[in-house]
């Protein structure tokens, strides 16, 4: 890989103090990069730029910066790393005139808030960015509102949509999660990309959760390998706040793999009593939010026991089953999905199912409903009852109007 290759090629120079390695990452979940650095035994400093304030549209980029922070080489070739010494390390560079020393301080949020209230889009944007980077975990909603103000004043600013998407996904991963946060993230990333389709960083953020046909390669398939190797060294792998899975592991596909249609439905006549939300709620996200004719989308479903009723899974009964019944012409990669119960008799964890669907070439533009239902055993502590329930899901997918 590119960066570990550079690390290895320059280890001696680093050890001799002739070269300082530094990294900047744009990932939504930066702690994954921390695990990566541990795995590859790279201990140098990394700056987190999940909002892509730097404005790069592709990675990787390698830059050689002189003692004054001036760019001296752009993307020097790794296979000829000796040139780094000739063209950079062994050269002396002149100090630029009037080059000020920078102060590295945490921005003053109260001052930025006062500035934002002057009503300028850029001030709202700066305030929102600072809240995401430096605010307490509970202030993501405030940042989302501030990005909203920035967009109200500058509705075509693509980067603001991207940053707002980052904020929604951040809240989705937090204890302040609200219904639709993940879908909102995907929709705002998609809007950013519509305005500027050439930004690879933004495209990758959607691909991370999107259908396999759209992926150039898997994203985080290295994580289990890294953990295994780190443990084999006798170290404890760095913890991750959000476990990668599903779309983030899925390998790319060349053609859509459709599931067989002759499987037997578990509740064909709908006789199982419905759970209307008392026990389990379901968070739904479709990626991309608007699918083109003939293209595919990935659906993310998270089943969460209702904490108000102290609902929990009954794991001594049958597993959770999802049954998808696509309308005519629509294909799915799986019609029945089962989540095996954990070994504990009861549990309250969220359960995630992802599947992919393919839109027919002749689909009419607009909203399409994909019917599905889940069957599960659930208990609630309030009245001490355990029941078998069915949850009907009417999944909404938007079909794009063909251009031209």
């Amino acid at each position, binding site marked *: 890989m590119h960066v570990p290759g550079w690390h290895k090629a320059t280890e001696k120079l680093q050890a001799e103090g002739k070269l300082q390695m530094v990294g900047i990452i744009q990932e939504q979940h930066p702690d994954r*990069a921390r695990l990566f650095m541990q795995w590859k035994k790279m201990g140098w400093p*990394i700056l987190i730029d999940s909002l892509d304030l730097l*404005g790069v549209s592709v990675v990787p980029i390698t830059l050689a910066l002189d003692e004054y922070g001036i*760019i001296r080489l752009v993307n020097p070739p790794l296979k000829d790393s000796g040139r780094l010494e000739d063209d950079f390390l062994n050269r002396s560079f002149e100090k630029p005139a009037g080059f000020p020393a920078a*102060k590295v*301080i945490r921005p003053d949020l109260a001052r930025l808030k006062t500035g934002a209230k002057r009503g300028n889009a850029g001030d709202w944007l700066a305030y929102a960015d600072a809240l995401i980077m430096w605010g307490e975990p509970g202030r993501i909603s405030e940042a989302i509102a501030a990005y909203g103000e920035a967009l109200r004043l*500058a509705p075509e*600013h693509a980067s603001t949509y991207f940053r707002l998407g980052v904020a929604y996904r951040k809240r989705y991963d937090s204890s302040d999660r609200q219904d639709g946060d993940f879908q909102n993230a995907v929709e705002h990333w998609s809007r950013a990309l519509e305005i500027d389709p*050439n930004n690879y960083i933004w495209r990758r953020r959607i691909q991370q959760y999107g259908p396999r046909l759209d992926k150039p390669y898997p994203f985080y398939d290295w994580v289990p390998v890294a953990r295994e190797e780190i443990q084999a060294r006798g170290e404890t792998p760095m913890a991750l706040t959000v476990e990668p899975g599903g779309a983030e592991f899925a390998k790319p596909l060349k053609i859509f793999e459709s599931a067989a249609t002759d499987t037997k439905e578990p509740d064909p006549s709908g006789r199982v009593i419905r759970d209307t939300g008392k026990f389990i709620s379901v968070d739904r996200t479709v990626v991309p939010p608007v699918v083109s004719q003939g293209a595919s989308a990935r659906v993310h479903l998270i089943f969460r026991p209702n904490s108000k009723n102290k609902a929990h899974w009954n794991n001594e009964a049958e597993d959770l089953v999802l049954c998808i019944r696509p309308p005519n012409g629509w294909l799915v990669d799986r019609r029945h999905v089962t989540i095996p119960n954990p070994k504990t008799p009861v549990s309250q964890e969220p359960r995630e199912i992802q599947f992919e669907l393919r839109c027919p070439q002749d689909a009419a533009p607009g909203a399409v409903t994909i019917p599905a239902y889940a069957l599960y055993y659930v208990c609630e502590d309030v009245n001490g009852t355990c029941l078998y329930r069915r949850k009907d899901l009417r999944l909404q997918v938007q079909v794009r109007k063909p251009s031209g």
Partner: protein
Amino acid sequence: MLGSVGMKTRAFVCLVGLACANTSVCAGTANPFPSPGFEIGKPFPDLILPSLADGRPISLSQFRGQKVLLHIFASW
């Protein structure tokens, strides 16, 4: 409209005590430098960002006096 965003983003950068010498970066527009857009001979922008190690503010300017090989990358 975008111009006004850019102006104020630049103001923010200066407000937090940065020397923002690359206006294309500070402008904060949708795609200020489609790669490779970093110019040889220009300063690298002094964005203050959280450190992956401990979340504290960190900037490339802290490495002045050393020759730096900077990688803008992702673990995927």
